[in-house]
Structure formats: structure tokens, C-alpha cells
């Protein structure tokens, strides 16, 4: 299929439909409204599909829970303050081992914050976000093409591991337009997961629940979840590298910040500075081993995020003291420029005596 020019938000919608998403439930919040509107226009009238503009983010995520109970591929989307409201439902989805795709086109916080792009929801996304011991797979796209590709794989991952998958984008990715190619056609038949609740016909009745009055039983459920999380860590950790082979300074950045950093690194290379980048694609599971591996050659790290320093903690944990970590961040929805980041890189490069 030829490339088409689309906003990131619309590309997610189209990719979701092509992944067999049957149900979308959303609630308006900037900067992700184009996605909700795309689903209203393109999903709501599809055979067997359902679109609801819910009365709240809480209702929307619980509708997703219901659709997932019934075996449908279901999605919701929001932005930071709305994602906070969805945490209750995400915790239940995780506990019940129900797949779902949740898009966060994040914006500046805390509180109502701003509507401009930010990455301040890293902690919330990668630590579970709601109550209880659980994790969600977190995908961090950095282009409209990746928004489309990752949306498709998010549904597959969610079904394969019976887990909610978060697509952590930001307001900039959602609103910008780029050429995008959709690699899949929408399925003729909507996929229905086995072991869904569709009435006890020809089989015993089934229960989907989280509550138990027996702590030992709940402990076993937690162990069972964590065994699966170990498997996900082993099989699904993904990342991208850029010019790391001879790099003396490694920039670690995700999502749109990695796009900005790439521009800065190109300038650095043009000026003879040996700088490379590691870009985690799955924020959870975090590419811990890969960071550790890089530390065999490069000792200096610059973590660049559009927040006050969140992923930097995962980098420090991964390095186990085997590399020195610096941080540069702009919170609140401020978009740093490549030349600004280049200045930080070159200053650090000379300060640390790498030249």
C-alpha cells in the first residue's frame, strides 16, 4: 500500500482497525482527540464494531474491560490526566489477565498541566500505574510510522501475554503529520479470543474475578503474573541503537525526545564528537541488559527526557555504577530543540575529557 499523510492520532486509529479492533471507548481530552474522532468516523459503523464516547475516562476503561471479558480486541485512548483516571481499570485488567490497548498521548503535568507534549508519565506507565503488583507492556514510538506499527503489534502482544499494553506517545507525535504505510489489511473476521465470556453454552460457566479472601491464593496469582512478566522481559524487550559502535558518550532517550536527540547527535558527529544513542522501544520491559552491554565500551551516559528525570533511574539501575550518568530534561510541555541538546552534549563531552 502506498504511503499516506496522516496525523499520528489518526494513524493509530487506522492501524487499530486494521488490527481487528472491535471496540473503542474514549473521552475527549487534548492532545488526542483526533484519535477518538477517527474512530467515530471509521469504526463506529463497521460491522460488529462499537464506538462510544463515554461519560468519563473511568467509564471508558471499564467498557474496555467489559469488551475484553467478551473476547473482543478493545482500545481506549487519553492523555495524562485522563490516564490517571484509567488506572483503576488497568489494575483490574492486569489482575484478570485481560488484554487491552491503552494509548497515552501524554502532556505536561502534574495536575491539569498543559496540553503540550511531555514525557512525565514514564514512572506511571512503567511501574504499573494503579494499585497492586503488576506491570503493563509499554511501547514508545517516535514517529507516525511507529505509532501505526506499534499499535498493530500492541494488540498482538496484549493477546499473546494476556496483558494491557500501553502506547506511550505524546502530544507532538499525536498531532504531527508524516507519511505512513499500513502494512496490514483489516481482517474479514474480527478476532475473538478463546476463554472469553460468551455464555455457558456447551461448556461449564466461567468466572473472571480478582477478589479472593485467601492471601495465599492471591500470592500465587501474583507469582503467576510475575512468571509471565519474566517471560515478557526475556522475549519482548526491544530497543534501537544509533552510532553506538565507537561512541564515547551514549545518549539514552525515548519517543519524540529520541528524534530530537538524533538531530543533536548528527551535529555532534559532524563536529567529530563520538556520540551514539540507545533508544528503548519497550519502556517496560526496559532494555537493562543492553545498557549494561554498552557499558563495556562507553563510560559516559546522557539521559535526555522531556521531564525532570524518570527513565534516568532505570539507566542508573542498569549500569550498576559501571558508567557515569548525566541528565538533561525539560518538563512542563517545553519542546527542546536539537541545537539545545547538541550544546548539552558537547559541553558534557569536553567536561568529561572525551575529546
Amino acid at each position, binding site marked *: 500500500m502506498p504511503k499516506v499523510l496522516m496525523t499520528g492520532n489518526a494513524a493509530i486509529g487506522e492501524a487499530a482497525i486494521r488490527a481487528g479492533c*472491535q*471496540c473503542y*471507548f474514549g473521552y475527549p481530552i487534548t492532545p488526542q482527540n483526533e484519535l477518538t474522532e477517527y474512530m467515530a468516523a471509521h469504526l463506529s459503523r463497521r460491522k460488529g464494531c*462499537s464506538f*462510544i464516547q*463515554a*461519560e*468519563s475516562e*473511568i*467509564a*471508558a476503561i*471499564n*467498557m*474496555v*474491560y*467489559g*469488551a*475484553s*471479558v*467478551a*473476547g*473482543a480486541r*478493545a482500545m481506549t485512548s487519553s492523555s495524562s490526566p485522563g490516564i490517571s483516571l484509567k488506572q*483503576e*481499570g488497568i489494575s*483490574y485488567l492486569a489482575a*484478570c489477565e485481560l488484554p487491552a490497548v491503552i494509548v497515552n498521548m501524554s502532556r505536561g503535568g502534574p495536575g491539569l498541566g498543559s496540553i503540550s507534549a511531555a514525557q512525565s508519565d514514564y514512572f506511571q506507565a512503567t511501574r504499573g500505574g494503579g494499585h497492586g503488583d503488576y506491570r503493563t507492556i509499554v511501547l514508545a514510538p517516535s514517529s507516525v510510522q511507529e505509532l501505526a506499527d506499534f499499535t498493530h503489534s500492541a494488540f498482538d502482544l496484549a493477546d499473546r501475554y494476556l496483558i494491557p499494553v500501553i502506547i506511550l506517545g505524546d502530544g507532538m507525535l499525536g498531532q504531527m503529520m508524516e507519511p505512513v504505510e499500513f502494512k496490514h489489511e483489516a481482517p474479514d473476521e474480527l478476532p475473538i479470543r478463546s476463554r*472469553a*465470556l*460468551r*455464555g*455457558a*453454552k*456447551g461448556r461449564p*460457566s*466461567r*468466572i*473472571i*474475578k*480478582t*477478589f479472593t479472601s485467601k492471601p495465599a491464593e492471591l500470592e500465587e496469582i501474583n507469582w503467576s503474573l510475575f512468571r509471565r512478566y519474566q517471560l515478557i522481559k526475556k522475549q519482548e524487550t526491544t530497543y534501537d541503537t544509533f552510532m553506538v559502535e565507537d561512541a564515547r558518550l551514549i545518549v539514552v532517550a525515548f519517543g519524540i525526545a529520541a528524534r530530537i536527540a538524533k538531530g543533536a547527535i548528527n551535529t555532534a558527529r559532524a563536529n567529530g564528537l563520538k556520540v551514539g544513542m540507545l533508544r528503548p522501544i519497550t519502556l517496560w520491559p526496559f532494555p537493562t541488559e543492553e545498557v549494561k552491554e554498552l557499558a563495556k565500551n562507553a563510560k559516559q551516559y546522557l539521559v535526555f527526557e522531556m521531564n525532570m528525570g524518570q527513565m534516568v533511574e532505570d539507566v542508573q539501575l542498569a549500569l550498576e555504577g559501571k558508567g557515569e550518568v548525566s541528565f538533561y530534561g525539560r518538563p512542563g510541555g517545553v519542546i527542546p530543540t536539537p541545537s539545545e541538546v547538541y550544546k548539552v552534549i558537547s559541553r558534557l563531552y569536553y567536561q568529561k575529557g572525551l575529546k
Partner: protein
Amino acid sequence: MEKVYTRPRSLKKVTFHYCPGCGHSIVHRIMCEVIDEMNLQERAIGIPPPGCSVFAYHYFDVDMAESAHGRGAAVATGIKRAYPEAIVFTYQGDGDLAAIGTGETIHAANRGERVTAIFINNAVYGMTGGQMAPTTLLEQKTTTTPYGRDIKLEGYPIKISEMLALTKGAVYIERTAVNSPANIRKTKKAIHKAFQTQIDDLGFSLVEILSPCPTNWRMTPLEAWQWIDKVMTKEYPLGVIKDVTGKEDAD
């Protein structure tokens, strides 16, 4: 010899954990009778809430999915939209449906979701130990209104069924009680009609059931039955609140 009374097929052979005199077990049983009579066991999907009836899935032999507190109507919406062939019901208490889940309930009703809510009103939070519910009566003592519910401080008992009747999507709402054989029979009839409303694809249906909670009311089961008649029905009168189904009663 003709067998005139038996355990409903869709009621599991498990002993109820409910307190003596509690209304839940009565409602469970008559719901299962209706499910059997209407042949819905293979189509029904039930949604119990957190609360005393969180374990309803141990008793109903139909597919069931637990809901977060108050979100039953949203979960039911998701199930029904994804799988419209199902007969979806929520089983919710007064705190669940009329306090924390007010928003979800009103909007599901207003959208005319083809789901049925079985709403147990016992005027207290039962499982957590008898705190004030939105439906707690004036001057009623609970663990969080130890001096009695005071309108200046706690406001008024909420008439959520009457409120829901204002939404055009709600087509059948009736208030019943389970404090006498006659009222239990009327409740069963109402549940039957609510399910039929859903089967006929007419809109949202709800049966509010005044149900005794002798433990938290600090009463004997008999006193609790009498209190429903003498006190509760004065605030919450029994009968059809709304019926625009255009259907005659079955009998």
C-alpha cells in the same frame, strides 16, 4: 409424585455465605428461577460488584465477571456492545449503584444500553460493616451516622430509580421488596419483565429491590422484614416507576 419445588438449574449447589435473614440469597434464587424459566443460562453474563454479593459468582451457574466498585454499568456496556447476543445483567448494591457508580449508571441508562440492573437497596454498606449509604433513611443510625442521618449534614436518601426514570433510554424500572412471600413473587415477576425488556431490545431496565440487612440494621430477621414495610417503603414506595415497554404484564 409431581415435583413442585426444586433447586434452579442455574443455581450452584453451594451453601450461601450470607447472614441469616439477608435478602441476597432470596434474590439470587429467584433470579436463577427466572434464568431457568426464560432459558437464559447459556446466554447470560452477570456482573457482581464488590460488596457482600462479590461472591455471587459462586452461586449463579452462568458466566460472570467481577466489576470494579460502581463500574458495573460500564462493564455491562462493554460486554453487550462486544457481544450483543448475551443477556447481560449487573447485580449492584446501593453504595455501588447510587454513590460511586452514579455516573456510569445514569449514562448507561440514558444511552438505552440493552442491559438489566438488579439493584439491591438495603440502605447501608453491608460488607464494610454498616456505614451510611446514599439510600440510608433520615435519622437511621449507621456506623458513620451514629447519631442518625441528619439532613443538614448528610443530605437526603437518594431516589436513584426515580432519577433514572427521567432518562429516555430507561424503559422499565420497578421497585419491589423481598420481605414477604407476596413481595418475593412480585420481585420475581419484575426480574422476568426486566430480562424480557432486554431480550426485546427495548432499552435499559432496572429492578430496585428493598432487601433486609438484619446484621447491620441490628434487628432480628423478622424485625427487618417489618421495618421494610413500616419505614423503608414510606421513603421508597413499591411499584412500577416507569414502563414504556408497551408490553402487557405476563399474567
